[in-house]
C-alpha cells in the first residue's frame, strides 16, 4: 500500500522528520515525515482527526513537537513562535482568514514589517504602493487603502496570499482554502496557485475535495490516525486508491454495539429546508435505532439539528413524532415533546458553571419537580440522584459546583440532564469529540444501552470508526443535502467517504 516516493531532482524547501505530538490522552501525530518542494503543490489528505491541523500548527510555530526535526533549506531549525515560522518563510492561509477586519488591506499585508520613513514612522506612500504591486502580482484588483471588512472571503484570501508574498514566504500552507468560495472564485484561486508554483513556492494544500486535489496537486501525502500512511505523485494514483489509504483500517471489534429490535417509526422529518444552510432533508427514525449522520465538517448536520429543535427556524418542512404533526418553535417546545439535543461544544453549550450539579441536571425538568410554581429542592435532589447514579457520576456531593468536576464527569452531568427529561429522541452531536479513549468507550456503551431501552438516537459524528461501529443506519450529508443513505449491513468506509466528498461514480478522473 505504501508507495515508493519518486524523489524530485530538487532539494526540498522544508522537511519534517519523525515529528510526534501528544495531548493528554490523545496521540495526535506519531513519527510523521513530510517534504515540500519548491514549485510544487503537495496535497495533504486525511479524515477529520487524522492529524492534519496539528501538523499545520507545528509548521507555523503554534504547537511545539514532542520529537522530530524541522529542516528549512536543509538546515535544522525550530519554530518556537509563530513569528519564528514566518521569519523562516513559512506562512499559512486558513479556512477562516486570520487577518484584521478594522485595518486597511495594505496594513494587513505589511503588519509587523511595514516600510519605515524618517523618524521611524510608517511610510504610507511606500506601504500602499508596495501593497498595490503585491496585489497585482496575485492578480487581485483590490484598493489597498480600503478596510479589510469590506472585502468578501475570496478577496480576503487574496490579501492573505499577498501577505505571504510580502514576507517572501518560500512555503505556503493552504488549509481548506476553497471551503467558503464560489465556483468562479475557486478558479481564480487555482490560477493564483499556478502562478505561485511558477514563482517557485512550495505549497501544502489541505482539502477534502478530490476533484480539486487532482486539478492542482502534484504530490500527495495521506494521514490516518496521526500517522503518515502513503505519499507519492498524484499522477501515479487514482481516487479509489486515495480513499482506501485514508480509511484502510479495521473497525468494529472495539464498539459495544448491541443488537436491538428496531421498532416502529418515532420521528419523521420531511421536506426540511433552510434558505442558506440545508435543503431536502427527509428521513425516518425508528424506536431503538441509532441513526448516524456523517459528513465533512460544515456539511450542515449541526445546523439541521439545531433547526430541528427550534433554535433556528426552517423555511419549510414537517416533523411528525409518534405519528403526530409537531411544530417546534423553541428548544423548550422540543424538550416538552421529548426531543433533546446534546450539543457538540459541551464547554460552551453544555454545563452551566456556577450552578451546582443537581441544578444543572434538573434545569430542563424544573416543571416536573416544582409544585404550584415553587421549586421543590427535595424533588430536584431525588431526580438528580437517580440519573447521576445511572451514569455512575463520581462526585463528592450533588451540591458541588459542576465546574469542579473533570471533563468526563461534566459530560455525564450534561447527559444526565437530558435523560432526566425522559426524551423519546436524543440527538448526540459529536458525542466523543475531544475526550479520552476510556470515556469514549463509556459513552458508546451507554448509547447502546439507551437504544436497548427503546430510545431513538441520532448520532452526528465525523469519525468513521464511530459511525461504522455504532450506527444502525447512516445518512451522509454534503453541502447541506443528503448525499447518501446506508444500512449497517452495506456500510463501508469507502462508501461513506465517497458520499461525503461527492465522488459519484466508481472510478472517475483517476489518472492512468
Amino acid at each position: 500500500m505504501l508507495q515508493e516516493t519518486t524523489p524530485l531532482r530538487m532539494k526540498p524547501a522544508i522537511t519534517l522528520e519523525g515529528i510526534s505530538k501528544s495531548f493528554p490522552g490523545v496521540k495526535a501525530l506519531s513519527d510523521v515525515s513530510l517534504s515540500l518542494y519548491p514549485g510544487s503543490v503537495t496535497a495533504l489528505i486525511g479524515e477529520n482527526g487524522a492529524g492534519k491541523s496539528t501538523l499545520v500548527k507545528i509548521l507555523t510555530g503554534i504547537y511545539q513537537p514532542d520529537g522530530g526535526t524541522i529542516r528549512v533549506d536543509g538546515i535544522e531549525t525550530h519554530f518556537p513562535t509563530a513569528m519564528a515560522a514566518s521569519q523562516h518563510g513559512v506562512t499559512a492561509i486558513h479556512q477562516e482568514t486570520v487577518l484584521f477586519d478594522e485595518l486597511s488591506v495594505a496594513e494587513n499585508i505589511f503588519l509587523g514589517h511595514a516600510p519605515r520613513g524618517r523618524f521611524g514612522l510608517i511610510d504610507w506612500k511606500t506601504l500602499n504602493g508596495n501593497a498595490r504591486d503585491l496585489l497585482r502580482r496575485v492578480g487581485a484588483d483590490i484598493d489597498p487603502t480600503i478596510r479589510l471588512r469590506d472585502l468578501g472571503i475570496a478577496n480576503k484570501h487574496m490579501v492573505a496570499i499577498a501577505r505571504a508574498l510580502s514576507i517572501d514566504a518560500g512555503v505556503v500552507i493552504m488549509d481548506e482554502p476553497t471551503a467558503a468560495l464560489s465556483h468562479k472564485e475557486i478558479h481564480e484561486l487555482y490560477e493564483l496557485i499556478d502562478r505561485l508554483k511558477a514563482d517557485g513556492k512550495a505549497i501544502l494544500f489541505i482539502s477534502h475535495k478530490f476533484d480539486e486535489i487532482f486539478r492542482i496537486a502534484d504530490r500527495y501525502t495521506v494521514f490516518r490516525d496521526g500517522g503518515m500512511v502513503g505519499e507519492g505523485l498524484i499522477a501515479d494514483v487514482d481516487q479509489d486508491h486515495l480513499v482506501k489509504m485514508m480509511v484502510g483500517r479495521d473497525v468494529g471489534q472495539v464498539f459495544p454495539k448491541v443488537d436491538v429490535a428496531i421498532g416502529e417509526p418515532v420521528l419523521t422529518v420531511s421536506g426540511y429546508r433552510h434558505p442558506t444552510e440545508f435543503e431536502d432533508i427527509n428521513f425516518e427514525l425508528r424506536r431503538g435505532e441509532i441513526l448516524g449522520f456523517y459528513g465533512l465538517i460544515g456539511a450542515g448536520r449541526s445546523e439541521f439539528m439545531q433547526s430541528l429543535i427550534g433554535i433556528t427556524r426552517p423555511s419549510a418542512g414537517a416533523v411528525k413524532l409518534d405519528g403526530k404533526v409537531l411544530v417546534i418553535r423553541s428548544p423548550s417546545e422540543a424538550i416538552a415533546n421529548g426531543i433533546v439535543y446534546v450539543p457538540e461544544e459541551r464547554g460552551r453549550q453544555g454545563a452551566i458553571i456556577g450552578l451546582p450539579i443537581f441544578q444543572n441536571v434538573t434545569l430542563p425538568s424544573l416543571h416536573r419537580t416544582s409544585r404550584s410554581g415553587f421549586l421543590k429542592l427535595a424533588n430536584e435532589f431525588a431526580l438528580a440522584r437517580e440519573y447521576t447514579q445511572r451514569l455512575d457520576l463520581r462526585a463528592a456531593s450533588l451540591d458541588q459546583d459542576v465546574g469542579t468536576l473533570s471533563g468526563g464527569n461534566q459530560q455525564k452531568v450534561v447527559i444526565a440532564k437530558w435523560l432526566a427529561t425522559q426524551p423519546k429522541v436524543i440527538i448526540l452531536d459529536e458525542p466523543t469529540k475531544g475526550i479520552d479513549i476510556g470515556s469514549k468507550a463509556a459513552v458508546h456503551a451507554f448509547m447502546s444501552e439507551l437504544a436497548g431501552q427503546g430510545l431513538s438516537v441520532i448520532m452526528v459524528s465525523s469519525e468513521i470508526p464511530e459511525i461504522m461501529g455504532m450506527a444502525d443506519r447512516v445518512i451522509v450529508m454534503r453541502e447541506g443535502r443528503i448525499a447518501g443513505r446506508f444500512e449497517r449491513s452495506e456500510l463501508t468506509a469507502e462508501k461513506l467517504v465517497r458520499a461525503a466528498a461527492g465522488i459519484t461514480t466508481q472510478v472517475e478522473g483517476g489518472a492512468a
Partner: protein
Amino acid sequence: MAKLLKNREILLVFAIVALVFLIALRFPGFVAPSNLARVYNDTSILIILALGQMAVILTRCIDLSMAANLALSGMVAAMINAAFPGVPIPLVILTVVALGAVLGSINGLLVWKLDIPPIVVTLGTLTIYRGTIFLLSNGAWINAHQMSDAFKALPRAQLAGFPVLSWLSVVAVIAVYLLMTRTQTGRAFFAVGGNPHAAVYTGIDVGRTRFLAYCLSGALAGLAGYLWVSRYAVAYVDIAAGFELDIIAACVIGGISIAGGIGSVGGAVLGSLFLGVIKNALPVINISPFAQLAISGTVIIIAVAVNARTEKRKGRVILKKAEAV
C-alpha cells in the same frame, strides 16, 4: 462554588463586624442597638435597589438607569400626591411600582428584541428618564409643604419598634430570596448568566429572562422612588444622581460577578450594609467626605480583585479537556 460563596458571605459578615468594632473604638455610641437600627434603616433603599441590580447582573447585563428610574418614579409619586392629596398612599405606591416596572421593561425590551448591549441601552434610558423628569416638572421642585402628611409619614411610621422603611426592605429581601431560590425564573437568572449558550439548549429563553430581570429592577426602583421622595420630603430632577454607582458597588462588594451567573441575595444585602456602615460611620469619626469617597472606591477595587481571583481559580479547573487535533 456554593461553599465558596458561603465562605465569601461569612467573610463579608466578618468584615462588617470588624469595621463596626473599629468604629466603636473611636465612637462607642455607634454600636448602640438604636444606632445600628438607624444605620440599617438608612441603608434600606440601597438594599432594595441592590436586589434588583443583582438580578440584572446575574443575567450578564447591567442597569445604569436605576437611579434615574427612581428619580422619575419618585417625581411622579410626589406629583400625584401634590395634585390629588386624597389618593390613598398604597395606591400611589402601587402606581409608581408599576411605572418603575414599565420603565425597566423598556430596558428589557431593547436588550431582548433589538439586541443592543445593556450598558448602551441603560446609559441611554438613564438620560431619557432624567430628561423626562424635567419635562414633567419643568425643572421645579416639589417640596415638603406640597406633600400630604400621610405621604411623608409612611416610611417613618413605627411597626413593632422599627420604621416601615426598614420593614419594607426586609419584605423585599424575603420576596426576592424566594424568587431567586424557589422559582424557575430565579433559576433561569443564574443559568442565563452562567452560560447563555447552554441555557438556550436547555429551553430557556435568554432574552425573555433578561427582560424579566429588568422588570424586577425597574419595579424595585419604582418602590425606592416613593421611599426616597417621601423620606427626604423633596422631589427634583437630580435626586439620587450618581446613586447607580453605589448600587453596582454594593453588588460587586457582595460578590456578585459582573460576568454573570454568580451571586446571592445575601451577598447583595451584605454588600449594601458594608457600604451603609462606611457611609454612616465615616462622618461620625470625623473623616472628610472626600476621604470617604476614596475609601469607598478602595473597598470596591479590593472586592473586585478578590472576586476576580476566585473566578480565575474556578477557570483553571474547567479547562481540563485536551484540545485534540
